[in-house]
């Protein structure tokens, strides 16, 4: 092909990608950055300034909700890791052939179902008129109905449940490549079950642990439906503040500032996680 023709082909091939990334990713984010830096100085009059960010730091509800979201998300990530690890280890190292495939498939199934359906299930189990409360009353363990919904425990439960798959898959992938001989050697050298786990298995699973934790944290921080529905008024999740500013109060500059802060929290965590373990984004996401 002649050079101009080749350039034209390349241009045509690149056009959709540029339209996609330009119109749907880059420019919209430039827009909320600009929006977040515009302060309202009079009704319908806006000027450049950091007022929206200042408002975040001076209004306790805002920064507390932010800190709470980050804190609970870290807790959820750790809990998910601890709960998922024995399962991933079982799938990767113990289960063989058919059983292995079935166990992995059973893990995947609930996550093809909408988040709303899963949350509905937990609401039906936990609420005052729900399954647990009914069973407790029917068996005489309690005198009256008990409300398990609308508290932090319910929110954490729902978020951990939602994160499990994204932890199990990368963990199982990482553990899959562990040589049985290395584990045997650990035992032969007199290591206990615990020592082998701590000195051989966990270090080997590190790429999976990092990948899973990053993804679970990201999904948890950005979640909306689970904390709002399971936490009710006590949910207090930062995404809810963004929604409130944008849709309910129509204060877009404030909402944009909150959005930038959430984006910052999420990407800082991803970056830190990758930095600490010297991995790159592409391979990490591909593991999931």
């Amino acid at each position, binding site marked *: 092909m002649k050079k101009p023709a080749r350039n034209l082909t390349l241009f045509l091939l*690149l056009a959709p990608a540029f339209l996609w990334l330009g119109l749907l990713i880059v420019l919209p984010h430039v827009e909320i950055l600009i929006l977040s830096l515009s302060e309202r100085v009079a009704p319908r009059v806006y000027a450049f300034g950091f007022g929206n960010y200042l408002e975040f730091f001076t209004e306790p509800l805002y920064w507390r909700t932010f800190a709470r979201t980050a804190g609970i998300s870290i807790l959820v990530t750790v809990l998910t890791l601890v709960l998922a690890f024995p399962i991933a280890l079982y799938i990767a190292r113990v289960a063989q052939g058919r059983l292995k495939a079935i166990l992995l498939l059973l893990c995947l199934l609930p996550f093809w179902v909408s988040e709303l359906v899963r949350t509905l299930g937990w609401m039906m189990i936990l609420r005052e008129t729900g399954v647990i409360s009914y069973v407790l009353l029917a068996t005489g363990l309690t005198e009256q109905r008990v409300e398990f919904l609308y508290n932090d425990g319910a929110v954490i439960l729902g978020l951990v449940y939602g994160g499990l798959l994204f932890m199990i898959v990368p963990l199982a992938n990482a553990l899959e490549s562990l040589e049985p001989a290395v584990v045997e050697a650990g035992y032969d050298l007199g290591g206990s079950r615990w020592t082998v786990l701590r000195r051989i298995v966990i270090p080997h699973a590190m790429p999976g642990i990092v990948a899973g934790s990053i993804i679970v944290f990201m999904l948890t921080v950005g979640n909306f439906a689970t904390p709002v529905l399971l936490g009710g008024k006590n949910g207090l999740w930062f995404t809810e503040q963004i929604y409130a500013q944008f849709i309910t109060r129509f204060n877009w500059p404030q909402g944009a500032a909150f959005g930038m802060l959430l984006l910052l929290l999420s990407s800082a965590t991803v970056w830190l996680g990758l930095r600490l373990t010297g991995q790159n984004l592409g391979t990490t*996401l591909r593991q999931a």
Partner: protein
Amino acid sequence: MNRPTLAWKLYVGAFYAFLFAPLLIVAIFAFNASQFPSPPWQGFTLEWFIGTGVVFGKPGVLVDPIWLDSIANSFKVAIPVALLAVIIGTVNAWVLERAEFRGKTVLAMMMILPLVIPGVVLGISILAFFSRLANGLEDWLQTDLDFLRPGLPLVVLGQLSFILTIATLIIAARLRKFDRSLEEAAFDLGASRARVLRTITLPFLSPALVGAGLVALLMSFENFNTTLMLVGSEAPLPIAMYGQMREGASPAINAVSLMLMLAMGGTASLFALTSKQR
């Protein structure tokens, strides 16, 4: 390590029970003859699927316009999203695997980026940008551009912003495995570029194209975070469910959930089948 303790086995069993408990509860209570989606069990009924509302005062899913409209809206979004994701994803995969140009690694990096942006942030940024665009263009053209305002077209764009990444990755992975000597052979035998593409390359890619389309369909149907920010008066299914769940719904929501589970399970198995043919 290969001999699991009893405690470990019990834990694995309990874990899977935990995993399926909420889904089973949702499914079972779709058939409960009660006005509320909660125990006790009042007997078996199909009212919440096909009932006209005579028995419980509220109609079943397949008769209730709220649910039928939201399912239709979900299709109005999911089908364009899936088609566009496959077409644009194929071009992108071509760029990643075949083209050589400066800045390719940066572009490849950019294509992955949408996956690490929270869905809510994608939603508000697209909402804000397209509102500004609409304001500017409307002043200039002196016409109404409603498709740039919150509504189903904007939901399509919002979902595409990250579903395109997934579609691109699925198709690029398949293209990487393609043996280019097959194309060379076809060229040597005198085939034109278009013919090689139509008879050799695209047939090879087709499992990935179908797979990417199905995944796009699933993700579009389930997306909540981005959709919530961009939705207008016509609510797709997850948004309608959210509204009903906040108000305290009838067991019709269980019925719609069960239908969704079955449809999703079917589509997911279809995807598993197509991705196995390697």
